[in-house]
């Protein structure tokens, strides 16, 4: 027994826990099994305008969104396919008037549901209705630990205050809470306070997620890229807090790709465990996949079932397994550990999604992107391009001056 649950295999390795057992494939030729979890981007509408939003730059308009009945059919199909968890995300998922009905349907078909929310549209009644509908977990994004930084990054006045309130309601309703803190050069100095905020909010989990640079974040990279000193300090703070808060707060840490030596196992490998459904119903190997031009994605509105799309569609099979790999991945001993890193990042930085992710030190482009990151992190370009349906709006001087901690923050990050 100590080899399993109490051992290190199942519960310590991150979101891919215990997958070896669940990943049985039907034949050795198959590199994928039954998907475990699906991210449902039920809308791209959102009152926040975060400059690192993970949505594509080309957002799906409200008029193209799947209807309530279409989402319910999707949920039923997912449960039938063997999916265990769904994440209701967006945009802001509670911008949909039918969110309680959708969560209820997920519960009815036996899916474990998470809500990934900005929290600013929630009322206590709505949250309570979601809990009654069987919602199992609430994840709230935070942009900082106090309004000066947080409201400026979110591009919404009083957002931080509202988030704190909803976090408290979540715990009052006895739902587990994850604080998701997206970190970058302009808020990393607040990390110790963000960790304390998560403890004070009685959160169960904290995700310290360095920005991943695709889509909106790529456009804002010069304003967001942390310095290497900040990252070293961050790793130290996180490791210390993980030890200090064991049993109180679980902390997951996502390091920034550009400063890594090995690429991340993005999505657990393309088309292996997870997928994403866009507001308009596209079935995507990851939330940024539409940024790769030249790939065609099937829709749940097509004649195909989701199971068929998962197993047979060209987009899912294109980068599955290791057969597609060029060198240096092809002969690399780590090829099944990281599956070549992130396809979207390879596309964004090299123009070919079939290349090795430049986050990998073995990529011929690695040195170049590392230097670029270093250079941008040392720059003084702090102005955001806010995310919106109009293709982005540049931050005004007035908005920028909201963050009174900014000048000090740049010095503090080195010594704190």
């Amino acid at each position: 027994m100590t080899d399993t649950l109490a051992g290190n295999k199942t519960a310590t390795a991150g979101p891919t826990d215990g997958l070896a057992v669940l990943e049985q494939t039907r034949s050795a030729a198959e590199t994928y099994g039954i998907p475990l979890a699906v991210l449902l981007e039920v809308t791209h509408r959102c009152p926040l305008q975060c400059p690192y939003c993970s949505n594509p730059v080309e957002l799906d308009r409200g008029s193209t969104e799947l209807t309530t009945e279409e989402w319910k059919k999707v949920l039923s199909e997912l449960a039938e396919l063997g999916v265990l968890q769904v994440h209701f995300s967006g945009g802001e998922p509670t911008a949909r008037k039918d969110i309680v009905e959708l969560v209820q349907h997920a519960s009815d078909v036996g899916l474990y549901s998470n809500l990934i929310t900005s929290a600013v549209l929630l009322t206590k009644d709505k949250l309570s209705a979601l809990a009654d509908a069987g919602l199992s977990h609430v994840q709230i994004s935070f942009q900082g630990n106090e309004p000066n930084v947080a409201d400026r990054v979110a591009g919404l006045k009083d957002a931080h205050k509202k988030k704190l309130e909803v976090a408290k309601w979540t715990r009052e309703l006895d739902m587990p809470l994850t604080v998701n803190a997206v970190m970058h050069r302009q808020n990393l100095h607040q990390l110790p306070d963000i960790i304390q905020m998560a403890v004070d909010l009685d959160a169960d989990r904290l995700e310290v997620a360095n920005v991943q640079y695709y889509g909106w974040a790529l456009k804002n990279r010069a304003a967001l890229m942390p310095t290497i000193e900040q990252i070293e300090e961050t790793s130290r703070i996180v490791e210390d807090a993980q030890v200090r808060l064991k049993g109180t707060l679980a902390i997951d840490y996502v390091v920034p790709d550009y400063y890594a030596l090995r690429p991340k196992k993005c999505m657990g490998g393309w088309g292996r465990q997870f997928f994403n459904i866009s507001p308009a119903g596209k079935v995507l190997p990851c939330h940024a996949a539409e940024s790769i031009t030249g790939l065609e994605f099937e829709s749940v509105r097509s004649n195909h079932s989701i199971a068929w799309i998962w197993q047979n569609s060209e987009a899912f099979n294109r980068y599955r397994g290791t057969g597609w790999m060029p060198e240096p991945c092809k002969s690399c001993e780590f090829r099944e550990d990281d599956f070549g890193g992130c396809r979207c990042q390879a596309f964004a930085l090299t123009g070919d999604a079939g290349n090795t992710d430049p986050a990998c030190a073995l990529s011929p482009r690695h040195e170049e992107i590392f230097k670029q990151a270093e250079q941008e992190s040392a720059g003084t370009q702090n102005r955001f391009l806010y995310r919106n349906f109009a293709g982005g709006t540049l931050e005004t001087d007035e908005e920028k001056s909201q963050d009174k901690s900014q000048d000090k923050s740049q010095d503090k990050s080195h010594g704190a």
Partner: protein
Amino acid sequence: MASRNISVSETSRPKLPRHTKLKFDETRQVWVILAPERVLAPDEIAVEVLQLCDGVRSVADMVDQLAEKYAAPREAIATDVITMLQDLADKGFLTEARESTA
């Protein structure tokens, strides 16, 4: 509210918190534990122990029951069960029924 920082002992009466679900997955024909952002695959004995975690039984009761069923030394079973439960508790996947102290 779920209690945290639990120290599992023979007198503990552990239970799964509301957000941690033990379920038999019909598609894969295995038991799974569903938790926020996690799917765990417990082995048969872990499943058996977790099914006993109802917030009423004490760990001592569970150990007695398992020692009898498997005709194994009680001490060895107790060590294994407590180690396993403590590990789950540290990760927030196990809580404890508590007397009201008010």
